[in-house]
Structures are given as structure tokens and as C-alpha cells.
């Protein structure tokens, strides 16, 4: 939910690229709703 800082943690699909190839993982990152 919303944090006191006015930022909100959201789940994001994050792309990862290694020498073996590219894939995605689900991570959390805060986002500035203002």
C-alpha cells in the first residue's frame, strides 16, 4: 500500500539479460505517485 513518503511499492516485470539469454522476473519497486 501507500507509504508515508507518498511512494507506493508496486510489482514490476523486470528484464534480465545474461550471457545465457534474456528473461524477466517479478520484483518490487517503489513509484512516486505525485
Amino acid at each position: 500500500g501507500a507509504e508515508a513518503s507518498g511512494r507506493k511499492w508496486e510489482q514490476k516485470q523486470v528484464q534480465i539479460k545474461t550471457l545465457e539469454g534474456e528473461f524477466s522476473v517479478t520484483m518490487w519497486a517503489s513509484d512516486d505517485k505525485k
Partner: protein
Amino acid sequence: VKTKAALPVDSFDWGNYIGSGDMMGAPVSCFKHVPMGNSWEDIKEGIRVEVLNSDSNLPMKVYWIASIVKLAGFKALLRYEGFDGDSGQDFWCNLCVPDIHPVGWCASGGKPLVPPKSIQHKVTNWKGFLVKRLTGSKTLPADFSFKVQESMQFPFKKLMRVEVVDKAHLCRTRVALVQQVIGGRLRLVYEESHDGSDDFWCHMYSPLIHSIGWSRSIGHRFKRSDVTKKMDGLMDAPGRLFAKVKDVDQSGEWFKDGMKLEAIDPLNLSTICVATVRKVLADGYLMIGIDGSEAADGSDWICYHSTSPSIFPAGFCEINSIELTPPRGYTKLPYRWFDYLRDTSSVAAPVKLFNKDVPNHGFVPGMKLEAVDLMEPRLVCVATVTRIVHRLLRIHFDGWEDEYDQWVDCESPDLYPVGWCQLTGYQLQPPAMQASRE
């Protein structure tokens, strides 16, 4: 009053100093006036970032994922993914310097992540390993680098004109020009200083600087500048750039000349002294003199706002077990307010007139930080919070005797998190070692 000399700075490293043990750095969120001070809550241990892989023999720069093991101010102790419980390769870095990125930054730029050479063969399926380690974990906000850069912009510009306390006569102000801006700290040069050496360092939110015309507007003494012709390109710093003070209602009961109180001695910040309201100015400002050490002409009175965290009602020190410095020459010791008020036929300023706000500042005794030596305001030093009394912090300068300690308000713009000097390019004074002190 003892002042510290600048020391050789070249070999101090916060990471080595803080280490991975119990020593703590004050969190960036304790310092609302610094870059990122209002957007650091989400930076926690366990967050993943993409950083340079220093353990690679490839000809080009490559990155790998690391997690934050420990935070100290802007600095973070990082551990590359794959080292698990092995702290041997942990390394410190400043999260706000370029080349620290949220996970996903490399892929967005088409750069492959490459694991450190020493653990490359430890894992056969790095994709599976990373999916397992990263899924559900946290990373930096996507706009982190942009936020850092944005917060490093400062509105004060070179050659802007301000009014600032006259360091040789605290009771008056003078016009000064902004000559340098570093991390929000201003190097001001008094306007009459022909060779530019008569300077004064303070933070842009310091209560000691004001817009042109402030002194006249509140009845504060002012040294008229003998510069008749205003240089081209000069402009008065706009009023909106300066720290605001609370509006106060002076129509009811208010401070009066002669009322007694306790105040941090502006000429010796390690002491809180018996003081007197010498003159009540407009907009809630007061001229305060330190009892027993006032020049006859009032030239060392200092202007404090009535909401200033540096003035206290009589009895504050006694209640909080703080040593109160009695008036110089007052021989009736131990000092007792009751006796002194009777002996001087004075009254104490009413407690209700003082600012009682205590913000949830977050400081804890033992925390490390970078603090201005307010007796030598150009020096920012390695320091420790050694004591906390409500919103008042006792700041100790590492390696120096306790007599250099200073009482500083928790919201003072002269306190900075670990790593602030590195981020802004300001020179940090390391802890004094016995040899260098001598």
C-alpha cells in the same frame, strides 16, 4: 575558544571506518535538507541494484547484481549475488554516485549481466539462480538516478546578494555575495572585501542569512555597505529561497527586554548559558545577550527567532541534567536561578513562549555523520551523535577532545549523512589522530 585546524584528508574512508559491525551511520531520512532527504524511506537493506562488476577480466565494463547488506547514510555495503553468506568480497559504495542502477537497467540498455569471475563456475544455471533470488525482492525506483540529479540542483547562484550576520560583530548583518555553492552550502564574501578573503560559510537554509532588506524590516542592526556602485550582473537573492520562520502572535503575552532565559552560546557552541532578552524586534526576532560576557555596546548580541531551537526557558538545563554555564563573574555558586533572578531583579521568560516541538528526528546516540564545526564553518568533519535531549543533539568530533563538542538542533542544516561530502565534492575533515592534532 579553541578552534580546530584543517587536517590532512587523503586517506580517510567511511566504509573502512564504519565496517560491517555495530557502528551505525545516521539514515539519510534524518536530514530533510540534503539531496534525497525526503525520498530515502524506500532504501533498505536487502534491496538489489546493478553495479559494476569489479571481478571481471573482460575488456569492457560489465555489471552484476548486488544486494545492500548495510546502510550508513548515502553509503551502502554491497554483496554480489552468488556470494551468499561469504562477506569477504563485500564492498562499500555511495548509492548516489553515478553507475548504481535499479535491476533491469542493463537489459534496457542491451548490456548483459556478467557474474564475478571468482564464482562464475559455482553456479551452473545462473538464470535459474537469479530467478529464484530476485523474484519478489525489491530494487531501486526507476527514477532513482533522476531524483538524485534533480535534488542536486540548488537555487542559489554565484553573485546573488544576501544579508548575513557579520562574523566580527554578531549583533549586525552585512551584505555578502554568493561566491560558491557546494551541496547547498554557500561561501559568502562580504561585499566590502576587496580581495574576496573576508568570507563566511553557511548552508542556504541557515538562520543566519536573509534576503536583502530583512534587517531594516525587523529593526536589526545593519552595517551599511560602502560599495556605492553595484557591480553588473549582481542580483538580490529572491526571498522565497530562504528558510521560513513560523509566524508568531506577538499581540498577547510576549518576550520583554530584560527577561532571562538559557541560550546556546553562539561563540562557544559547546555551552548553554544564562542569557537575557536585550531587544525585542519585529516578526518574532529577539536580540539575546549572554550574561557576563556582553560588550558594553551590545556588539555581541545575537539574533535568535523566538521559535529558535537554540533558546530555552530558565530551568531547561537543570531538568535535563545539562551543565548550565553561569554568568561570568557571578560568584554565588552553585548557580540557582531563583537566587540569580532575585539578585538581578529580573524575571524569567514564560515557558509558554518557547518552541516545544520535538520532531520525530530518528537520531540515536552513537550514530555517525558529517557535521560542520560551527566554530570554523568551512570545515565539515567526521562526527558522532553522543547525546540526545529532546531535539537537541550533542555532536562530538571524532578524535578531538570533548571540549570541542557542540549542541546542535536535530533539524540543523549543518548536519549531513555519511557520504554527503563525497556526493557533493565537499572536503571532509577526517577524525583527528593524536599526531595530526599536534
